[in-house]
């Protein structure tokens, strides 16, 4: 789909619609029509961030997991194409990871009063940044394509199996500020449990899908460029 011009045009329109809907749908105390969103006290207009910040974090995760899966495939087949895919997924993941961190931190300033609070999810995205950083640092210090590919694949797999432990560990260490975190009983839990009105849910998933497709597109462009570079 992403290769055809129609597909790209559709994706552009899709994302434009998501952005327009996300910014323009009015928020009222009691929504009556299909385009009205509820006014959540304490979150107010800021609730819209879920439509633009969460997809970034989601794409980061998709990139992280696919870099790891390509790493596994490389170790299985010894085909350097998979290594190329792995690097490109990790590189794109870093871009989206930075975007998720910056957008989240700006919102945190207005909702929680400071740019950085070491909330569990802030911490986990910070760890993800560190892993990406370590991954590229490791790559740059190994000579020989085969060895570089094997070792960085090994590292991404180790990082991939230890990362879930953060999910078990973080909540015992600190209580979260993110909506839906532990200790936030009265608050809405929009991300974790998808407690959203149906129309917002539609925009939310449209945004997730749109940004994921954008990732796929950027990934294919990057792959084509790196393949060309290989031939030079």
């Amino acid at each position, binding site marked *: 789909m992403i290769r055809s011009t129609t597909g790209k045009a559709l994706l552009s329109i899709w994302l434009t619609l998501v952005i327009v809907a996300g910014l323009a749908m009015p928020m009222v105390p009691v929504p009556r029509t299909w385009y009205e969103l509820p006014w959540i006290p304490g979150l107010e207009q800021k609730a819209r961030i879920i439509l633009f910040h969460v997809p970034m974090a989601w794409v980061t995760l998709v990139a992280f997991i696919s870099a790891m899966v390509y790493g596994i495939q490389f170790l299985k087949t010894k085909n350097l194409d998979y290594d190329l895919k792995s690097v490109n997924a990790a590189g794109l993941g870093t871009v989206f990871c930075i975007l998720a961190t910056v957008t989240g931190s700006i919102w945190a300033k207005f909702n929680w009063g400071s740019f950085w*609070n070491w909330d569990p999810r802030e911490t986990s995205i910070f760890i993800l940044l560190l892993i990406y950083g370590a991954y590229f640092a490791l790559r740059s210090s190994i000579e020989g394509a085969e060895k570089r590919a094997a070792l960085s694949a090994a590292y991404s797999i180790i990082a991939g199996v230890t990362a879930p432990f953060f999910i078990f560990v973080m909540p015992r260490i600190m209580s979260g500020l993110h909506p839906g975190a532990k200790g936030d009983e009265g608050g809405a839990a929009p991300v974790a449990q998808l407690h959203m009105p149906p129309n917002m849910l539609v925009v939310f998933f449209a945004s997730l899908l749109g940004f994921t497709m954008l990732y796929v597109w950027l990934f294919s462009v990057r792959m084509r460029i790196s393949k060309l570079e290989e031939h030079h």
Partner: protein
Amino acid sequence: MNIKVIVGAVVIVVFLIFGAVSFMGSNVEYADFGKAEQFGKKVQVKGVWVKEKESRFDQKKTQFIFFMKDDNAREEKVIFDGAKPNNFEMATSVVAKGRYKDGAFHATEILTKCPSKYNGDSTAVKKSMQ
């Protein structure tokens, strides 16, 4: 070689689940001061601030000390390792997490519930934030 990978993968999945199970039981349970004293475990106690009795901030030890009355109207001294939470005065109820020891409740975390503006939304005050 293939057997090793399969066995390894099974072990990884099983132990990831084993780790995840510990996370399920990690919620700090609610209790009142009586139960907290009885078990010595880390619990959450819900109550209200007793404004009549003294409350002070010990600069040297960075401890905030106040009195709290739980749902059974039992009053206890609460020692919180940290500064006084921002919206403490406005709070309609307070939840203190910690354990009961030596005649006082030692809290490691305090949650305050505020009325009206943040309807039903509680704000966590963490030590690291101050």
